Structure formats: structure tokens, C-alpha cells
């Protein structure tokens, strides 16, 4: 029935807001809106100049981008990008090294050679190879002692020198004894006379030198050319002299390996055969014992040899005992043999005056 058709009221026209219109501007330009919306936007743009301005902006931006999109890529650039090879691809083809500049090639070669040289230097055991290399020795050998062989200058009758027990004399420092204040001037002259014919290894000097040594000066020795010699103790004298009153011990150490020392004493006495046993008794009384292979007071053609150790505390007593027999000259030499603490070692040579005469 015609009258049954529904009568819809006329739709009221919806007005587009500015917000919606601006949001639809891009779609409007791209023609993505339906007909109704397109018409609504068109009407709004006609009425609102701000929206119209924004429309022009978007259109201007699109046009500008369209012009820029006409940018072309040159053929060399295109080919360079197309034929570009990666790092490992260039290494594999071998073109990479040849294309390097000369300075970089030289630098890499130098670095490789340096690395190889460093590795070789680290791996080779130089300590084992060093003895094969020639070496120039600048050091001077002062004394060379061969313990296995007899020393040169041994007497025909087999008389051994003081060094037969391995007591080689490397240096000849001289000490001033503790009893320097008791030096006897009368014995000084006797010591001078005997000094010219003193035993091997002793210091030779004139009277002037002896006098000078009283003042604790250091004299050169003939045994060791390059060594310094301290003052010998010119006998243990009864009187006191102010010049030699200094109870100092000037020790000159030799090579760094000679960490011990030995006292070397020299005497010249008459009637040695009677005196030697007394000296032995004195030594034993002071708890002295032989320190070498021969017995105390080993009688030799020219004198008696005493090699003994003694408690250090009995040193003064020993000196007193020896001076009662005659003048004594004492040296303190560095030696490789180190005695136990509290013990000192002596080598006493008593020359027979009768044999000398």
C-alpha cells in the first residue's frame, strides 16, 4: 500500500568541523574520500581560510617531493654500488693488497717482520746459546789458583809454600792491630831488617814505609799490583806511641765472592825448635785447633807453619802470647772460606833466624 511506505524525516545536513576537515585533507588530496566527504571538505575549505592554507601547504610539499623524486643516479655511482665487493671478497680475489697505497704496504710488512723477530727473540733460549757466542773479556785476572796442581815456585826439596792448603792469597789488605798503642819502637828496626828477607807473600817496604804505616796509611803491595795494602802491625810492642794510637781496622775487601777472612801472621825467631812447641801449647791452651791438614807447628826447613782456628774472644790473649816470643806482623786477608760465627782462623809462619843467617 502506498500509504504503508515509511516516511523518513529529511536528514539534517551535518557540518564538518575544522578538526575533521584538517584530518581529511591529505586523503582529500589523494582522492581517497567518498563523494559525501569530498563535498563536505570542499565546502569547508571554501569557508575556512586556515584549512585552505593548510591544503596549499600539503599540495606544495607534495609538489616539492615530486620534483626531488626526479633525481637521477649517475652511471659510475650505480656501477660502483652494483660491483662493490666486501672485505673478504676482495681478500680472496687478491686485488685488495695491490690496491693498497705503498706506505700502508711497507707499514704492514714492517709490522709483520717486527712481530716475527720478537717471537724468535722470545722463543730462542739465549741462556743456553750465550756460551757459544764470542765474548771479549775486559776483566783482569789477578791471581789464578789451580787447586789440583802444585803451585809454581815450589822448592826443590818439596818444601811447600803457605798456599799448599789452598790458602791462596788473592789480596793483601793490612789491618792495624788492636794493640797498636803498645808498639815497641825497639822492635821496629828489627822488623825492618827482617822485612827485606821476609817470607813469601809478605809485604816488602822500606823503613820509611814502615814508619808511615804506623799512621794507618795504606801502602801498595807487590803481591797484588792493583790492590791497596793497609798497615801491617809492626810487632806487638810494649811502649805506646801516639802516632799509631788509633785502634782501627781498615779492611779492604777483595772480590765479592771472598766473604770470609784469615789472619796471616809472620814472626822471625831464634831457636825455633825449642820455641815451636811452646807456641803450640799456647795455642792449644787458648782452645785453638788445627784448621788445615797438617799438625800445628809443622816443621819445615826454613821455619814452622801453624794453621789453626781460635775463638775470637781469645784473639788478644793470642797476641799477648805471641809477642812474648818476639815481634809479630799480622795481616787480615779476605778469603772464600767462612768460619763459624765466633771463630777466627790463623796462618802463622815463624821463620828460623838461624837458617836465614
Amino acid at each position, binding site marked *: 500500500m502506498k500509504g504503508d511506505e515509511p516516511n523518513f524525516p529529511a536528514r539534517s545536513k551535518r557540518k564538518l568541523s575544522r578538526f575533521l576537515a584538517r584530518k581529511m585533507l*591529505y586523503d582529500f588530496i589523494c582522492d581517497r574520500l567518498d563523494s559525501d566527504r569530498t563535498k563536505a571538505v570542499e565546502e569547508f575549505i571554501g569557508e575556512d581560510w586556515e584549512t585552505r592554507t593548510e591544503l596549499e*601547504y600539503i599540495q606544495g*610539499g607534495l609538489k*616539492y*617531493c615530486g*620534483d*626531488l*623524486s626526479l633525481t637521477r643516479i649517475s652511471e659510475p655511482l650505480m656501477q*660502483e654500488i652494483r660491483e662493490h665487493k666486501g672485505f673478504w671478497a676482495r681478500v680472496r680475489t687478491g686485488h685488495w693488497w695491490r690496491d693498497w697505497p705503498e706506505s700502508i704496504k711497507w707499514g704492514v710488512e714492517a709490522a709483520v717482520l717486527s712481530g716475527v723477530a720478537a717471537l724468535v727473540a722470545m722463543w730462542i733460549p739465549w741462556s743456553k746459546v750465550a756460551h757459544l757466542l764470542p765474548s771479549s773479556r775486559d776483566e783482569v785476572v789477578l791471581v789464578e789458583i789451580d787447586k789440583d796442581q802444585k803451585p809454581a815456585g815450589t822448592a826443590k826439596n818439596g818444601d811447600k809454600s803457605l798456599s799448599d792448603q789452598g790458602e791462596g792469597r788473592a789480596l793483601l789488605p793490612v789491618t792495624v792491630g788492636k794493640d797498636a798503642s803498645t808498639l815497641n819502637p825497639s822492635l821496629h828496626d828489627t822488623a825492618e831488617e827482617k822485612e827485606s828477607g821476609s817470607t813469601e807473600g809478605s809485604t816488602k817496604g822500606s823503613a820509611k814505609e814502615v814508619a808511615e804505616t804506623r799512621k794507618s796509611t795504606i801502602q801498595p803491595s807487590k803481591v797484588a799490583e792493583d790492590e791497596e795494602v793497609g798497615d801491617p802491625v809492626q810487632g806487638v810492642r810494649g811502649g805506646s806511641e801516639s802516632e799509631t794510637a788509633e785502634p782501627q781496622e781498615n779492611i779492604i775487601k777483595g772480590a765479592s765472592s771472598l766473604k770470609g777472612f784469615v789472619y796471616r801472621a809472620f814472626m822471625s825467631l831464634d831457636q825455633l825448635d825449642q820455641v815451636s812447641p811452646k807456641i803450640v801449647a799456647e795455642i792449644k791452651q787458648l782452645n785453638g785447633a788445627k784448621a788445615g791438614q797438617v799438625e800445628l807447628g809443622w816443621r819445615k826447613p826454613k821455619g814452622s807453619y801453624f794453621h789453626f782456628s781460635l775463638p775470637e774472644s781469645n784473639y788478644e790473649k793470642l797476641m799477648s802470647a805471641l809477642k812474648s816470643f818476639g815481634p809479630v806482623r799480622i795481616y787480615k786477608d779476605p778469603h772464600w772460606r767462612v768460619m763459624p760465627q765466633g771463630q777466627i782462623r790463623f796462618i802463622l809462619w815463624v821463620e828460623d833466624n838461624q837458617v836465614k843467617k
Partner: protein
Amino acid sequence: MNDEARIRSLALFFFFASLDEKFSRSATVKALNRCRKRIGQGHLPNEKWPSVIVHVTHSFLPKLKQAKSQPAAISYEAGWLIPEGIDLGPWMEFQKEAELEEFLAVLWSGILGISDEAISEGLGVTVGTVRHRLARGFLVLGAISRGEFRQ
């Protein structure tokens, strides 16, 4: 999209994104290799190249942010042949003033000609988001080109 078109798209993208020729050359090569690798690993058809280009070029975002703060380093004879009469001034200002996402959206759509759908697929966002960014971007660019841009 043939190989030459792909190279052209990538070269134009990095040139206009960074305005640095040296960076553009190296980045184009790297991006091309990544796109080929992605297409090969995913066994994607050639039609997916535009979205792959969007995805790969978007991964250069940190370096593009750096380029935004650096002055332009281009010469007009380096390999990118800009049409005569076109002034790059508005584009340089647009690069500095616009938001980076809107800038890139304009670059993909307006210069490279990639569709909104491909851009949305490459970025993983909706088409509406892409069109919103484009609307804002073109608005700013148009205002700058007319010298009427105000922040």
C-alpha cells in the same frame, strides 16, 4: 622492481636522509646487501621489495639521527643528479625541523614513491598512522618551502 630501481631507491633514500655523500655510498651498499639477505632468507617475492627497503632503511635510524645534527656534506656532481632549478634548502631545513618519523614517511612516500601499505607493512604500523605522519610531514614541508613555517 628491478635491481637498478632498488639501487636507485636506496641511494636516494640515504642521500636525502643524511645529506652526506660518503655515508650514503657506504650505507647504500650495506642496505642493499641486507635487503638481498632478507629477501633470500625469507624467500619473499619481488613484490615485497618496497616493504623490505622500508624495514632495512628504518634500521639505520640511529645513524640518521646523528646525521640530523651534522651539517650537509654534498656536492652536486658526486653521483646524485638533482634536477636543475631545484633548491635543496627547504629540504635541509625540513630535515632539521621535522620529526624523524614524519620526515622518513615523506621520504619513502614522496621521493621513493612507496605506497602507504608497503610503508605500514615495513614499519609494522597501521596505514592510518602512516597517513597521519604523511599529512603532518607534507604540511611542514609545504610551509617551509613557502617560508611560512612556524614551530
